[in-house]
């Protein structure tokens, strides 16, 4: 009887060895996509992840097996987010995959399987073993127009060695508010009054906006009463005139009154290609001739806002 049982066991083992290996990715669960949120300058690079589960079986056993993953853009060939309202506007994206079991991480190449052997789960019953990491660089985000950005992708998991594949589609989203920045400002030294001539000084600077139109308002405020443009020396003060130029010519500014301008750049936060705005400050000789001698100082606060 014992001999008969041994023969049956041996036969079963031989049959198992003769059967084709059934390596299989059996499940991808919990892949919900990545929300990069609403980007703000304080965020820096926009990055977030989504954890999910990949179940991969080693052969006919119930033991987990290795697998590889691939992410393929469903639109285009690159990892990028596309503006919902303006499809021509894109934000490049980098994707990475992390094996949460052994901690290994690998950058993803579009439509290309990972090289590492990822650690599969026996079944997906609540414990995630995979992480998809999406990152958009702040410099790329700043060069994009405001709006809702989205990318659609397909993640495919394949067992190792390859036998079968399983895919899930997911999305990555990013919202970008309208942003503006004024920079490149310098102090204006008006020198010394010569007793006869008006004194003038100019400062060139940069107004960046990610808006498609480049339109913005600029509001100037001085340090005098009710924001008047005045320089001061002790208790004495002098009025001055501020004119603003966005490249279309000088226009006088009224304290606290927004002035509509057009020419904010949209591709460089600090106007690498050159400044695009300037102010000219003038103090009239008539006023200085009546002023007590002294060093007069003041400040102009410039507030820019997108339209």
């Amino acid at each position, binding site marked *: 009887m014992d001999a008969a049982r041994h023969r049956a066991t041996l036969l079963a083992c031989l049959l198992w060895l003769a059967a084709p290996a059934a390596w299989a990715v059996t499940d991808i669960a919990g892949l919900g996509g990545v929300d990069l949120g609403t980007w703000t300058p304080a965020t820096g690079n926009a990055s977030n992840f989504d954890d999910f589960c990949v179940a991969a079986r080693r052969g006919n056993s119930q033991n987990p097996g290795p697998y590889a993953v691939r992410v393929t853009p469903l639109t285009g060939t690159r990892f990028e987010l596309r503006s919902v309202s303006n499809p021509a506007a894109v934000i490049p994206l980098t994707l990475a995959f992390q094996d949460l079991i052994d901690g290994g991480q690998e950058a993803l190449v579009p439509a290309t399987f990972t090289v590492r052997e990822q650690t599969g789960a026996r079944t997906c019953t609540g414990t995630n073993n995979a992480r998809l990491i999406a990152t958009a660089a702040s410099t790329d985000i700043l060069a994009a127009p405001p709006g809702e950005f989205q990318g659609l992708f397909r993640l495919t998991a394949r067992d190792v060695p390859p036998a079968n594949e399983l895919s899930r589609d997911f999305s990555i989203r990013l919202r970008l508010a309208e942003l503006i920045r004024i920079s490149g400002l310098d102090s204006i030294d008006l020198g*010394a*009054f010569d007793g006869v001539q008006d004194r003038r000084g100019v400062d060139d600077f940069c107004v960046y906006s990610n808006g498609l139109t480049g339109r913005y308002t600029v509001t100037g405020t001085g340090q005098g009463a009710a924001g008047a443009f005045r320089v001061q020396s002790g208790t004495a003060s002098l009025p001055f005139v501020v004119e603003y130029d966005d490249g279309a010519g000088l226009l006088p500014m009224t304290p606290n009154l927004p002035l509509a301008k057009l020419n904010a750049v949209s591709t460089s936060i600090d106007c690498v290609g050159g400044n695009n705005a300037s102010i000219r400050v003038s103090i009239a000789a008539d006023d200085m001739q009546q002023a*007590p001698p*002294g060093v007069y100082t*003041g400040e102009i606060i*410039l507030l820019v806002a997108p339209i």
Partner: protein
Amino acid sequence: MNGHKNWQRNLLKSAVAASLLCGASLAGAATQGTVGATSTGSVDLEILVPGLILVNQLNDLTLTYTPGSDAAAIEGFCVWSTPGLVYDIAFAGDNPNAGTTFSAVSGGDSVEYSVEFDDQVGGAGWQAVVDGVTLNNGGAGFVPGTGATPGCTTENARIQVTALELANLDTAPAGVYQDTITLVVSPF
């Protein structure tokens, strides 16, 4: 800052001069905006307004000698400055003279004359002028006019020129005697 007073020729000269203060570098610094829904930056300004002073409304003086009396004339003028200043003033004649007097010449002949200055606004009263010596009202300075436009609408200072007859005009050969007085006013 300076003016000339000629006998007989009508000249009016005036100039504005600055009493320069020490230059100063900008104390503040411009600030840059940050990226956001709005952005705010600032620009600092600085200008040096020096003390300024001007003497003008000067007219030439003509004195006529009538035997039996001294020759004298008074001429008003204006000293203007930016607010808060007082000034000193110096008078210099063109011709060499002896002691503290001034000289007017005609060829190789000369007559002597004296000059007095009155700061009408400051109320210092007539003060004797010594050729080339600065008057400062006993250290208090004289009070200039101030106002919207350099130059005064009313005269606020005057000089009196007197040529004594005795041993001076009465012994001088007949002729036209001339001198130029240069007035230098400075913030004090």
